[in-house]
């Protein structure tokens, strides 16, 4: 696979805007980073190693992502908190013109409204991205968390 720096940058920029939207509580725009039949899941490394598919979140369409945000805003109860994502540079593992696969390590801190801050989750994004003209969108985002443990609850998507 020849190195295409512009493609690597596009994936990096997509994830930077994606995590910024989450961290700044612009959750309503979270689904817009996906194509309409985009897939999103959060699973654990332990489950993946054993070929077990059922993890914390599972969406097979952009519409399901909108439902999740609706539920968070209107139904679910959780103490006010924010995330801060820090990402490594993405590594392109596949580049078929406009269809890319990339792996990006992440760390997410959770900051409670009290100020209490913990390292909440670490892991890797396994992304499939489509470049459609000027736009980059997720066809699939798999969030594989290194730990099997989540502290208290997982309200906001990663």
């Amino acid at each position, binding site marked *: 696979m020849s190195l295409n720096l512009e493609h690597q940058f596009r994936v990096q920029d997509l994830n930077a805007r994606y995590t910024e939207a989450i961290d700044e509580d612009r959750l309503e725009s979270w689904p817009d980073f996906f194509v309409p039949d985009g897939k999103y899941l*959060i*699973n*654990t490394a*332990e*489950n993946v190693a*054993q070929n*077990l*598919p*059922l*993890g*914390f*979140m*599972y*969406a*097979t*369409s952009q*519409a*399901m992502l*909108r*439902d*999740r945000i*609706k*539920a968070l805003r*209107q*139904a*679910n*109860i*959780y*103490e006010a908190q924010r995330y801060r994502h820090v990402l490594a540079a993405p590594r392109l593992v596949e580049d078929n013109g406009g269809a890319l696969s990339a792996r990006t390590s992440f760390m997410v801190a959770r900051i409670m409204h009290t100020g209490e801050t913990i390292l909440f989750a670490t892991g890797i994004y396994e992304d499939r991205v489509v470049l459609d003209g000027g736009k980059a969108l997720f066809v699939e985002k798999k969030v594989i968390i290194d730990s*099997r*443990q*989540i*502290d*208290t*609850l*997982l*309200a906001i998507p990663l």
Partner: protein
Amino acid sequence: MNIAANIKTWPSDSLTRVPYWVYADQSLYDLEMERIFRGDTWSFLCLEAELPRPNTFRRSHFGDMSVVVTRDAEGKVHAFENRCAHRGALLCHKDRGDAKEIACVYHNWTYDLCGKLTGVAFRRGIGGKGGMPPDSHPEEHAPRQLRVEVFAGLVFGTLGKNVAPLETYLGANITPNIKRVMAKPVKLLGGYSQILPSNWKLYMENTKDSYHASLLHMFFTTFRLNRLSQKGGLIVSEGGANHISYSMSADVAGKEYEQAKMRSANEGFALEVPEVIKSIDEFGDGIGLQILSVFPGFVLQQIRNSLAVRRIVPMGLDKTELVWTMFGFEDDTPELHDMRMMQSNLIGPGGFISMEDGAATGFVQRGSRGAPNEMSVVEMGGQGIGSEESRVSEAAVRGFWATYRRLMGV
């Protein structure tokens, strides 16, 4: 020193009052580990399906004690303390695997899959020097072997000397509801843990609290998965230790909620993809929801087609690990498997209906911290611990405390 001498006196004879110091007293916690978990109770260790072949092991917990659960060469299940007879080191620090024996890394003492000491390295010394004296009996300090029973694919263990056989302990009005779910060979689907910022008892109370379900968890109610006005019931085992809260799938379109103007009845809330809660009556009896708990720390969950076992691991006064294991059956059709995957969004720490429990138990832990001598008021449904038709009841919570106080002697 008699630990019990440090324990405060329960301020009330009634089961309707629970003093908040129960969540914040270290002496009490230590006594609980001994009198409850290592006492006359049965603790859930793992699913039989987690020991898939002969000569496999799975690590688990028994209260806060690490244990090794094994399936030996003949297929029989054993469990023993995860502690070497020599210096007390952990014998097994992998979560699961295949093994014909267990060897301690520290000095290579070996054990069979029953937990029996089989080898002491250099026991006779080398060249006539060193080694253990001939009258040493390190076997006397061997890790305790649990009494193990498997019921409906669930592995339970006990160290109790006066505890009934497992099926009796579960209760004649509880076992049929375990069997209706655990009727076929299980297929594991996934597992994870939720770290709750609260005492272990707060989670068990939350599980037995059928009253809160559709009030805290708005998602549940709005989509008519569980309204307290649905047909169902609350079953409590004799003595109060175990419970079942269940409701039927068919929803009677009741206006009780809307009329009561409760927070959880928001009629304007609609899902774009209602398939997330699409389900079938896989057990054929019309029961769409069943939450079943076994004292001290086990839950069997059926939420439509979302099936799971949950076990608690106390991690100190105000921290509990809740271990979830989700499953289906070997003969699941692809359609049923997909439904279980979709419904996985409902449960767990990220679950549309479960996520609040993680927060709620923490709120009680923090809210009650400054008032150790104040008390919970547990009067919904009266004062008793008997089964009843209404789920607007805290009978199962009172049942938990009846069992707790009896075992602890408080």
